[in-house]
């Protein structure tokens, strides 16, 4: 065990820190769930790509730096530390890209990765359907083979970033009459195709962070299939495994929130200390963020040594989503009567030191639901990690 960075890693941190200090927009961008904000976040992705910082773990040929997992963690720490904009293309870069690297053809990688890195093509995800949420194998949207095309019909929903995104990846039923996880195919498709109707869904904050997508005889070339026909479920699951669990929420995010929470508490001691539970919650927040960071480093080191990560990855999702709730609920308590005021409200003057606790609080409510509800994660832990009998 040796818990230190190497010289090159320390230099990399400095390089990232300096670049971000020089390039991160001074003013907070409008939410990427608005048209203007989406465009500004896309421009930021292009700026990141120019510095070759948009996808540091990718091979250089695709716009990355070929960084290892520790360098990736360093990059993420610096990124969150700098209060840089949220990543509008995270569906593509952190979720689809690892899948493409593993299952895509060389031509597909060449076609999709560079434009993903620059933000020229922003990706939305197409998993859930009205009848297939936690029970994703109940997917009914079809991709019927017709010569060198698939003809897509049906409906997807809760599709994150889909209102303004360019491309969508998702699972479709390609074998008529197939059941559950059989007969599903992983398809990549442009959202501007004829026959596609996108209906924005307003989220708690009033913005259209996700959408319903209707497909009416949408024709997609067969070359847009990722992996084999009918193998979609395994492809989706293979990288839903660890790499993706690791990359979905990097620890820097929660450490930054914990740091801001400690600051908020210290600036409001008089109000906060009226309830002794608040101090305790602030401390648990800091410890939780630290534990999540350490767990991620440990996992990265184990992966580097060739270990396989199994069902214990499901503990991650539960841990960070509950930590995020704890931190934001605690902040709301500290803010007291200021907590309900939205950022556009004239009062008060930035109680969050540049961070909107209310926006974060709202988003934290989604954490235990997206990317597999925490109930599903608990089932996975109980059955595959602890070995309890299936229901």
């Amino acid at each position: 065990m040796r818990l230190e960075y190497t010289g090159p890693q320390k230099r990399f941190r400095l390089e990232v820190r300096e670049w971000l200090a020089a390039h991160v927009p001074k003013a907070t961008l409008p939410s990427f769930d608005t048209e203007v904000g989406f465009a500004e976040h896309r421009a930021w992705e292009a700026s990141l790509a120019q510095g070759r910082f948009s996808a540091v773990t990718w091979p250089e040929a695709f716009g990355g730096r070929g960084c290892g997992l520790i360098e990736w963690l360093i990059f993420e720490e610096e990124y969150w530390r700098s209060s840089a904009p949220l990543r509008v293309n995270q569906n593509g870069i952190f979720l689809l890209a690892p899948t493409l690297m593993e299952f895509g053809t060389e031509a597909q990688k060449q076609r999709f990765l560079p434009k993903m890195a620059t933000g020229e093509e922003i990706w939305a995800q197409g998993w859930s359907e009205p009848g297939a949420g936690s029970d994703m194998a109940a997917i009914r949207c079809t991709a019927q083979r017709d010569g060198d095309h698939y003809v897509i019909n049906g409906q997807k929903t809760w599709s994150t970033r889909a209102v303004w995104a360019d491309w969508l990846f998702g699972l479709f039923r390609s074998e008529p009459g197939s059941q559950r996880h059989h007969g599903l195919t992983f398809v990549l498709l442009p959202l501007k195709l004829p026959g596609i109707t996108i209906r924005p869904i307003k989220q708690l904050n009033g913005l259209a962070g996700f959408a319903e997508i209707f497909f009416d005889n949408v024709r997609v070339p067969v070359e847009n299939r990722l992996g084999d026909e009918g193998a979609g479920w395994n492809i989706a699951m293979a990288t839903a495994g660890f790499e993706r669990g690791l990359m979905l929420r990097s620890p820097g995010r929660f450490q930054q929130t914990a740091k801001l929470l400690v600051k908020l508490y210290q600036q409001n001691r008089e109000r906060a200390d009226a309830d002794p539970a608040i101090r305790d919650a602030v401390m648990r927040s800091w410890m939780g963020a630290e534990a999540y960071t350490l767990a991620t480093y440990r996992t990265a080191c184990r992966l580097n040594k060739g270990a396989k990560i199994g069902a214990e990855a499901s503990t991650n999702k539960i841990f960070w989503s509950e930590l995020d709730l704890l931190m934001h609920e605690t902040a709301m308590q500290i803010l007291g009567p200021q907590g309900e005021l939205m950022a556009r409200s004239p009062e008060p003057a930035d109680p969050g030191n540049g961070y909107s606790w209310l926006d974060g609080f709202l988003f934290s409510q989604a954490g235990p639901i997206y990317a597999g509800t925490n109930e599903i994660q608990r089932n996975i832990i109980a059955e595959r990690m602890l070995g309890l009998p299936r229901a």
Partner: protein
Amino acid sequence: MDFTFAEQQIAFRDAVRKFLIIEAAPEMLREIWETKSGRSRELRCKLADQGLTAISVPETYGGIGLGDLDWILLQVELGYYAIPDSLSDTAYLASWLLEHLPADLALKREWLPRIAAGTARIAVGHPVNLLVADAELADLILLWHDDEIHGVTASDVKLTPQVSIDASRRLYAIEWSPSARTRLCSAKQGAGLWQQVLNRGALALAAQLLGLAQRMVDLGVDYAAQRKQFGKPVGAFQAVKHQLADVAVKIEFTKPVLFRAAYAVDRDLDDAAIQVSHAKLAAGDAARLAARNALQAHGAMGYTWEADLQMFMKRAWALDAAWGDRGFHKQRVADAIFADGAELGPGSTFN
């Protein structure tokens, strides 16, 4: 960056685990509970045969000369099997303290080889603990007095046995008079040593609590998989599953905190105290939740003397408040993170 254990460390842990499965079976724990001393000479000899008493003792005194990182995985096993022995107090804490006393070679020559050979029991009385564990059988008791370190024998002091809910803990109130004869080290030199012993004591218990938490989950899973109601194992019901899964989450996120704390202690890093306190709090949380939820998974059986779960629950409840209770460790964390100019946030984890 390497957050993994060396192969030898894993191999040592595996060997100790194999040994304890047989030598520290629940039936044996119950037997030892019934004895007057609560300790087994035979078990101590077997622990010595495994090399466990010699781990910390420097090679020049007949030991193996290993450190905190070598101990930490073994401490988890000592917790998992709830061994009824003061092995850690003697072979980890007392051994470290004696070795680091200012050069009193005679004392080191007298005691360190005996620790290594498994022929001495040494109790450690730190002021953070109300009572002294295993004082009666101890050949030497190391005591705190205004930061000085004193060494006494059981015959020098008056011991009043106290009764813990954990029948394998043997605790004593101690009345004694410090004197020049008993003094081993000045307050000036002792203060830092006591601080380090405190960190090691809490670190050892954090590891044991983690092991206990894992044992209780395992017992809860075994029971829930066998016990049937409504025509199926109760462990097939989500309400039961999710309680045990919650403990698994706590355990997974305690491990790296514990291992980092062991690293900080081993390397004598500036932030060792806060890392240890964090580990103790996290492990205590995991163990208390494990006790509660494993008991619930057992239903009424969990409330009986007959079910083995009780041995591990009682140990966990007791150890949670030993070597610093929750308030003590929270205060140490608070002192660090609420300090002016404390470096927190992304990038501050490994300094």
